[in-house]
């Protein structure tokens, strides 16, 4: 049996490896996404003071430290039972929206984009952000860079540092915003809106304008019918900072809507011996292996799924594009709700719409008089015990769960991060893509890259996903019968 290894998979955050097995006909028998790395945050955070978690867990991921910082901060709100003032909430959401804009921008232009802008089978040495810049022209490139620059500046102003911010406190924020900062950020927010619209146009030209890409997007190889998860507000409209977790089925029907505190009643994680990354699934449905459909607890949690799980967006321009998105991809509206879109590559488009939403949200927030309130650092006197915090990370619903002693020293920590949610669907996408693309043993770099495109659209962050690390592995020998059914397991520790 022939086997193909893609190692490391590239243009994602963190480590990953794809193993593809071909049968004698040279067709794909099976394909695996392996995550070879983990770091162990759940364990080594124990013993630390809880209030440090926003500044420890952001090191889970340097691409989306703001997400961990925010989830941790919200977990502290809950832990110390400190409901933040509306001023604090707005300040945080503003900070968080700026992060969304820059994060999605990086993915579209640096990670996912090159496949489209330069073409899946273009020269791998050029197939990157710099290549994109050369292709679309330095002027546009500078715009992209400008966008990242100003939003990282906002993150630094509000959060203390451009990467790995530090400002989060239980029920509060360590620094208030000055009037001058407000004016500056307002200007930048408007520029964000402009940039978002510009990017959507670019997507129209480069992708939607290109029939091959459109076919690729709509092709079966990149389509999965799974459950979709996303955070929504009281009107079931998407929100990234706060709200209820909503899950809709492949048919668009709401399966469940729950408070993040109840996550463990709805989500469980499985372990496979061939990957350090766990596989979450919906308890309400159950685990039936790596398969599609209503009866499989596999769900996904991406820009696409957030749109699928919501009834719409709160900002006008974004809402327009929201509707255009579904219309274009031929989703019909059933009692006020668009049917979910299952084409994974459409996630890139959804991502751009989220940029627009976040940019518009920034304008709303920065114009709110409360945003410069000085009173953002409350003094905490409550005794901590247990707290859960959740936000929509760009790569999926992110949940932090802490328990502490009465001094606020952590005694237990559990983290379900965005990408982990998508572990199963990614694995499935890769297998399906591989099977759809590799025929009769014909394998080209371009084809393999298209297989990578299958995970890339999820914008997986293995840094995030691999936050835990088991140290020395126990040795386990698994013996399978002809049908791959496990019949015996022997396990022992080796040092």
């Amino acid at each position, binding site marked *: 049996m022939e086997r193909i290894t893609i190692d490391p998979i590239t243009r994602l955050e963190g480590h990953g490896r794809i193993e593809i097995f071909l049968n004698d006909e040279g067709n794909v028998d099976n394909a695996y996404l392996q995550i070879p790395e983990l770091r162990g945050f759940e364990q080594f955070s124990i*013993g630390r003071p809880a209030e440090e978690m926003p500044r420890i867990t952001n090191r889970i991921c340097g691409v989306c430290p703001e997400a961990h910082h925010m989830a941790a901060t919200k977990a502290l709100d809950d832990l110390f039972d400190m409901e933040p003032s509306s001023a604090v909430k707005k300040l945080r959401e503003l900070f968080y929206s700026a992060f969304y804009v820059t994060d999605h921008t990086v993915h579209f232009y640096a990670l996912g984009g090159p496949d489209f802008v330069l073409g899946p089978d273009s020269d791998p040495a050029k197939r990157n952000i710099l290549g994109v810049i050369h292709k679309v022209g330095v002027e546009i490139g500078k715009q992209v860079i400008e966008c990242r620059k100003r939003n990282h500046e906002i993150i630094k102003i509000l959060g203390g540092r451009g990467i790995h911010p530090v400002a989060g406190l239980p029920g509060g924020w360590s620094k208030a915003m000055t009037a001058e900062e407000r004016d500056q950020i307002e200007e930048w927010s408007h520029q964000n809106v402009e940039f978002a619209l510009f990017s959507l146009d670019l997507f129209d030209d480069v992708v939607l304008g290109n029939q091959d890409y459109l076919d690729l997007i709509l092709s079966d190889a990149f389509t999965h019918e799974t459950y979709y998860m996303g955070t929504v507000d009281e009107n079931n409209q998407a929100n990234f900072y706060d709200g209820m977790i909503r899950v809709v089925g492949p048919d668009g029907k709401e399966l469940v809507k729950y408070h993040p505190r109840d996550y463990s009643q709805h989500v469980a994680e499985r372990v496979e011996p061939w990957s350090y990354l766990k596989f979450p699934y919906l308890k309400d449905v159950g685990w039936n292996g790596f398969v599609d459909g209503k009866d499989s607890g596999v769900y996904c949690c991406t820009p696409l799924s957030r749109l699928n799980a919501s009834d719409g967006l709160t900002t006008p321009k974004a809402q327009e594009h929201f509707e255009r998105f579904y219309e274009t991809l031929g989703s019909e509206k059933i009692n006020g709700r668009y049917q979910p879109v299952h084409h994974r590559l459409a996630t890139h488009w959804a991502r751009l719409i989220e940029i627009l939403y976040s940019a518009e949200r920034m304008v709303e927030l920065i114009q709110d008089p409360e945003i410069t309130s000085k009173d953002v650092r409350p003094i905490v006197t409550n005794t901590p015990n247990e707290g859960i915090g959740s936000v929509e990370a760009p790569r999926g619903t992110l949940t932090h769960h802490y328990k502490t002693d009465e001094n606020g020293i952590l005694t237990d920590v559990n983290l379900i991060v965005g990408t982990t949610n998508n572990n199963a669907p990614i694995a499935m996408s890769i297998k399906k893509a591989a099977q759809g693309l590799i025929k009769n043993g014909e394998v080209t770099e371009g084809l393999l890259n298209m297989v990578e495109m299958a995970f890339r659209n999820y914008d997986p962050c293995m840094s995030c996903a691999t936050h835990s690390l088991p*140290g*020395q592995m126990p040795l386990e020998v698994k013996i399978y019968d002809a049908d791959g059914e496990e019949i015996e397991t022997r396990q022992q520790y080796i*040092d």
Partner: protein
Amino acid sequence: MSEQFEPVIVGFLCNWCSYRAADLAGTSRIKYAPNMRAIRVMCSGRVDPQFVLKALRNGADGVLIAGCHPGECHYVNGNIKALRRYTMLKKTLDQWGIEEERVQLLWASASEGTKLAEKVNSMTEELRELGPLRWHEKVLADNGAAHVPVKEA
């Protein structure tokens, strides 16, 4: 020598009290465990926690810091600072799973040769009980980090 484990103790003795106490123990021919190797510092307040860690890292099984009694410090209160640092270090080392017997603080005036000798004896005993620390072998060596050969290109 007997087969039993002979711990190695590094002693940081202050020039004015404890080091003289050790001198006195010798001069009075008090026989005590030869397991302590003394380093003379001007004051227990000079003992940088780095010294203690370095000693443990470099194979010592225990560290004894000795100074003048509070109120009798030749430098007025250097020993008080030593006590503060020691207290903080102890809390940290406890988190690191290093038994408190391994790092001890003693007040011994220049006239307390016997006290010092007795401390060295008792500490030696306690460390025999605990067994070797020998950080590089027992803690660091076997950590799964053995050299891994470079992949064949």
